[in-house]
């Protein structure tokens, strides 16, 4: 098997088996969205107005929660050293790991987002568009978070440091994610510009994230 495909399959298997955190993010997402009406009140018009923002914020926090696991377990059992010494360029290995991570933690968020949108009284017709914005934007969250995960494993510090490093960098993704979701709801604003910028952010982080993460691993663990 192609080594990158092998890494992808291995990481996805680890994520869905016992001890993996694949569906934990989705569960966290559900809980965050459920908590919001308790905090701001069950007024449906208000919920419909801020629904996309809540969904995006919840998805951001949920994908952040799972980032911790990207490198830590591999670092602890030594397999990260083997991956670093392998012939496959580390950039590609890291990208494959991030892709597996997105498929197991980002994609479930996209899948349950329409259901949660329904709970927040978001208009039925735009639920699909909302999920589309999340599908386009969550890869950027994962690949930006990849840099933070690599930095924190290189410093052997996880948890809050990771959140502090990653969150300020995700500001553009959040802005354009919510902007495109709102554009889908309010008809006169065109959906295209914000959505294409969101896609551009994802594609750029797809390239830059693995490079920066690899540099962090190489310099930190040498």
């Amino acid at each position, binding site marked *: 098997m192609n080594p990158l495909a092998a890494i992808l399959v291995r990481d996805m298997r680890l994520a869905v088996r016992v001890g993996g955190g694949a569906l934990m993010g989705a569960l966290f997402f559900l809980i965050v969205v459920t908590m919001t009406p308790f905090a701001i009140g069950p007024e449906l018009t208000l919920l419909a107005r801020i629904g996309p923002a809540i969904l995006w914020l919840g998805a951001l926090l949920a994908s952040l929660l799972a980032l911790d696991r990207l490198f830590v377990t591999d670092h602890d059992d030594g397999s990260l050293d083997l991956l670093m010494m392998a012939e496959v360029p580390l950039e590609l290995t890291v990208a494959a790991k991030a892709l597996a991570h997105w498929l197991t933690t980002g994609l479930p968020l996209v899948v349950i987002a329409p259901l949660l949108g329904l709970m927040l009284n978001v208009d039925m017709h735009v639920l699909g568009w909302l999920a589309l914005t999340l599908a386009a934007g969550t890869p950027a969250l994962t690949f930006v978070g990849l840099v933070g995960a690599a930095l924190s494993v290189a410093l052997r510090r996880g948890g809050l440091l990771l959140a502090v490093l990653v969150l300020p960098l995700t500001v553009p993704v959040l*802005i354009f994610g919510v902007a495109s979701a709102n554009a889908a709801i309010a008809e006169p604003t065109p959906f295209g510009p914000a959505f294409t910028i969101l896609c551009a952010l994802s594609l750029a982080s797809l390239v830059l994230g693995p490079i920066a993460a690899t540099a962090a691993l190489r310099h930190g663990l040498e």
Partner: protein
Amino acid sequence: MAVIDLANPTRFLRIVDRVLPWLVAATVILFAVGLYRALNAPDDYQQGATVKIMFLHVPAAWLGMFGWALMSVAALGTLVWRHPLADVSGKAAAPIGAAFTFICLVTGSLWGRPTWGTYWVWDARLTSMLVLLLLYLSVLALYWTAEEPGRGSRAAAILSLVGAVNLPIIKFSVDWWNTLHQPASVFRVGGSTIDPSLLLPLLIMALAFTLLFVTLHLAVMRNEILRRRVRSMRLMQAQEVHA
């Protein structure tokens, strides 16, 4: 003199010791002149005396952004050229840049109260400066958590470069976000529309702030080098005790 001549920390320390008193004197003189000119500058016909906040606010904002640029260059020096003083320079620039950004936000907030009637607006400019402060704080958090100086510097260098790529995007996205949500902006600063009677003191103050930045930066770099020497001496001592 080439940058590589500064690679020797001892020589760097000697040069800093020689240059620093002059820099301090120049900074003090420029601040005296700048503040005098600023206090005597005419009041704005609309804002009255509050326009004087500008003389602190605008230079602080410039230097806050300059700090990140310096950190990015230092990061290249650390990762690409492996210049031994680059990581010291980057580490020294982070708290100073954060402080200038903080001064910019505080003075801006104090300026906003009389002119806009509120301490804080979620305007594009304010928000992007706030995110810059958060990025500075995250770099500082990285330095705080690193056990060993070298490892922390390389991690912070990577974060500075990632931030340097991201900062224009943040600035741009925040501008876009603001125009989408807010109607015609409450305020607008047109650089060239400032009257010369205000512009000249502003430029003097900007120069004074720049000199202050450079002076502080060199002093902090010197302290950091000495701190690292103390650390390695302590480690050597500890080894001798155990041996």
